[in-house]
């Protein structure tokens, strides 16, 4: 089973076609969101859509190059890539300082490289490499710790750059670990922790502690015969209280004022339509005004009249919602769902463990971006500025997602050459 038809023969067309569709729709949306009478040429390089056209050209070249590179390369160079990007993150932290304290890129000429975007890809490679090593078992404590370190290190470095959104993305790797054998309890635990998190913000602490204690007591009466269970319940109550305390502490001492406000606005605790809630309200108006079929290409008023902030980056989905309506939104979300399904499907058919784990990483990163980005535009997630994959304006983001996806496509095309 040697590869005979050249590089394009074995690639998964589903993924490539969806990729092309998403990039094209993204560009159209960027064009629509900044369109005005004065700048009509589609290749006006002073405008975001003109620049994005260059980025897209570049990303296609990158995709092609990846398909040409030998498939063996990626697994072999996983750790070096990871180390390079960790170093770059350190460089950004030390060198690229700004008064505002939130600069996260390195200037290379006029090109701004944002290592935090590419670090996701590098982390995914390193994690896949580590977990695919022979005789690694997810059950072992050591495996868990090393995995956590691989994921946590870049996340912490990005957090130190004040880019909370990009750092949160690394939480998505929990699904990869779960797929590779981490106990399912971790997902349930995570879910419960999230519920507690929200409750801490909404319910007074005294009430919350009474409820936690009450639940503990109820369980105690059911299972008091077994000593071991009592210990578990006690531990549960303790952990729950600890979470409440630490969340409370984090909200009041770690988060910055604007982040705190955003969370409060999302939870309906604070009403400030002009301040923190402004973006979300404007974005909901834009999307909601689209109706079933939308206002039509270039007919959006909300996004174009600058009512929606950052309309070509983080809030690009508003343009889709306004100009193409529910139908357009359905198509975009549908395409993303098909892509996610396809990635999982293709990952499962890999013979190489590395390729499979890598594939899951790709799916999880895409999923997390999708969830937070669209969630925030429709008012279901806090305003955390992370881009919509393939859609949002910006070279670093587009290229990093392209590399992320196409390395997987290459690994898949290469699978038939692996003899195991």
């Amino acid at each position: 089973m040697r590869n005979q038809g050249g590089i394009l023969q074995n690639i998964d067309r589903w993924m490539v076609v969806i990729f092309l569709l998403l990039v094209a729709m993204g560009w159209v949306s960027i064009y629509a969101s900044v369109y005005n009478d004065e700048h009509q040429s589609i290749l006006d390089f002073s405008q975001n859509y003109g620049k994005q056209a260059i980025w897209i050209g570049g990303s296609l070249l990158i995709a092609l190059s990846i398909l040409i590179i030998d498939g063996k390369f990626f697994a072999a160079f996983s750790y070096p890539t990871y180390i390079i990007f960790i170093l770059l993150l350190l460089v950004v932290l030390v060198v690229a300082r700004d008064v505002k304290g939130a600069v996260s890129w390195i200037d290379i000429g006029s090109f701004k490289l944002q290592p935090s975007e590419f670090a996701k890809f590098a982390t995914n490679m390193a994690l896949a490499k580590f977990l695919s090593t022979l005789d690694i078992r997810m059950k072992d404590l050591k495996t868990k710790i090393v995995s956590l370190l691989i994921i946590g290190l870049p996340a912490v470095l990005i957090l130190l750059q004040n880019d909370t959104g990009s750092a949160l993305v690394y939480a998505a790797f929990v699904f990869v670990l779960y797929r590779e054998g981490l106990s399912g309890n971790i997902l349930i635990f995570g879910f419960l922790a999230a519920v507690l998190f929200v409750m801490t913000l909404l319910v007074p602490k005294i009430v919350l502690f009474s409820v936690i204690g009450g639940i503990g007591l109820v369980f105690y009466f059911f299972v008091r015969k077994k000593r071991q269970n009592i210990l578990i319940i006690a531990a549960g109550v303790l952990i729950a209280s600890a979470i409440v305390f630490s969340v409370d502490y984090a909200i009041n001492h770690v988060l910055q004022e604007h982040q705190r406000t955003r969370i409060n606005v999302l939870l309906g605790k604070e009403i400030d339509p002009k301040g923190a809630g402004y973006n979300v309200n404007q974005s909901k108006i834009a999307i909601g005004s689209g109706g079933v079929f939308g206002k039509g290409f270039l007919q959006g008023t909300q996004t174009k009249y600058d009512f929606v902030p950052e309309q070509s980056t983080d809030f690009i989905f508003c343009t889709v919602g306004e100009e193409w309506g529910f139908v357009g939104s359905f198509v975009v979300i549908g395409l993303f769902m098909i892509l996610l399904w396809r990635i999982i499907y293709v990952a499962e058919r890999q013979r190489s463990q590395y390729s499979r784990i890598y594939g899951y990483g790709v799916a999880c990163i895409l999923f997390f971006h999708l969830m937070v980005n669209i969630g925030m535009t429709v008012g279901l997630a806090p305003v955390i500025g992370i881009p919509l994959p393939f859609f949002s304006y910006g070279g670093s983001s587009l290229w990093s997602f392209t590399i992320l996806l196409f390395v997987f496509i290459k690994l898949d095309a290469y699978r038939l050459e692996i003899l195991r």
Partner: protein
Amino acid sequence: MNVSQGRSSVILLIFFSVGFIFLIRLFTIQVIDDSYKASADDNAIRKVTEYPARGLIYDRKGKLLVYNEPVYDLMIIPKQAKNTDTAQFCKLVRITSSEYADLFRKAKNYSQVKPSIFIKQLSVETYGTLQEVLFKFPGFYVQPRTLRKYPDPMAAHLFGYIGEVDTNITKKDPYYKEGDYIGKSGIEQSYEKVLRGKRGTRTMLVDVFNREKGSFHEGKFDTSAVAGQNLTLSLDATLQAYGEKLFQNKVGGVVAIDPSSGEILACVSSPGYDPNLLVGRMRTKNYATLLFEPTKPLFNRALMAYYPPGSTFKLINDLIAEQEGVLFPNTAYYCDGGYHMGSQTVKCDARHGSLTLQMAIAHSCNTYHCYVFRSTMDQKRFKTSEEGYLNWRNHVLTFGIGKRLFSDLPQELKGNVPSVDYYDRYFGKGRWKSSTVVSLSIGQGELGITPLQMANTMCIIANKGYYYVPHIVKAISDSAGISPHFMEKQYTDVQAKYYDIVIDGMESVVESGTAAGSKIKDIVVCGKTGTAQNPHGRDHSLFVGFAPKENPKIAIGIMVENGGWGSDWGAPIATLMIEKYLRDSISRPELEKRMFEGVVLPKIYMEERLKEDKKKQEKKDSLATKAIVAERKK
């Protein structure tokens, strides 16, 4: 394999659930909920900014000093402005069609879709006629704003003025948008955040006839403007107006402070101007006119002009010498008409003979104070003159001289007490000693003190050793109060017990000494006259003082440029103000009349005035036209 199969399904299930939740959410807001679709094709959305009323300003007795008057800005959204009947429009707003084209182009360059100001501050009449027919001109609407109004024009320097924000500010502070106003000097600047209030916005639906059809989405996205907070000043409007009247046809400044609180009671800088001039459309033009006046009316002399304090500074030197243990109430020096150092002599006004401290203050003996200064600086414990000088200088700084007081008036300057470095550079290191800088003993030389600092030193002496940082705002509505910074006692390093003899000396100054001509019946004023040497013309007349001697209520520092002796103009005006404040009636009408009518304009100003008058009138005319054109172009 089975387990992992299950796990991949769980992951996919989670992915799809989130996708499903999004679709439900989108279906709800896009298809089911009609309220978001209010913007149909024939409706446009207009964001109207609601500008809050700026906070009002009252004096300490509750008299209204600054309020707001409504004006109207004509706004444009170029994209919505279609089929405008320009001929009719231009006639309505009184511009030419070429001006219209200019303004339209400018608005369009700013933004096609964002509103910008087309014509600023329409007159009430124009607004009235325009309002009735505005529906004929889609894309245009009127934005109410407010302008400052001063019912009794006074204290222009204190209030400062408001101007449009520039790009420096809009870049630094996201609150400000182009076209916003901001306090640019005085109280308007230092209390900007308190006075400005909070801007609100309304999102309005507008139909094709340019009529507002109501609030978008039932006002869910609107915020109402919050008016700025009102300020109550410590200023006594009566005293301020009286001070300004006394200063008419004179140049200089006077500051009066309540020593028990640091509250500024009056702060006059002369010549002043009518604050109503720097408001509205005429601001640019008037500002330019004021800027070119030879007497510099925009310059706040009370806070920014510093002069050598002259003899008023002897008080500080005496206090420092007492603290240093080199001067006692009964210390006597002999005055033979001057203080001699080799070939040089610091002259005294008279041969005072043998004097002790109180009389030396009362008669302002230079000889005596040269001895005092020397004994302070040339103490045996100092190895070098630098050391002695530094010790003296550090004492002086604690009197709030040579450093900013950090009052709530932004333009305040720090004055000058020369540093060791300065003398080292000027004379050479190690090549100067007490006799070289002995003019400091009588407040001449490189010293510089502002009227605010002069008044503040009087607070220190009245309080026997401390002051409160002078401040003009007494209370802020809806607020816990003014900054605690203004409530703390700032101590000098001269102990309380040393002040009594100096105060007695100051009493003698007014009772029988250099300011005897300004005595007030039944009010014991403690004061000191001074004359600041002026290399450019006649000396400046100075006076500092406080009253009454027991339980002082007012401390004052005054400077009349080219006024000559401190007793000529400084002491009379200051004591008249003290009397006005403490008694509200004047027992010395002749003196008052003489002060009202006196003209002490520096010669150079007088000549320049005549010369400039002609030029100015020409300049004024051309500037006025320029300003109007510039204003229109904005």
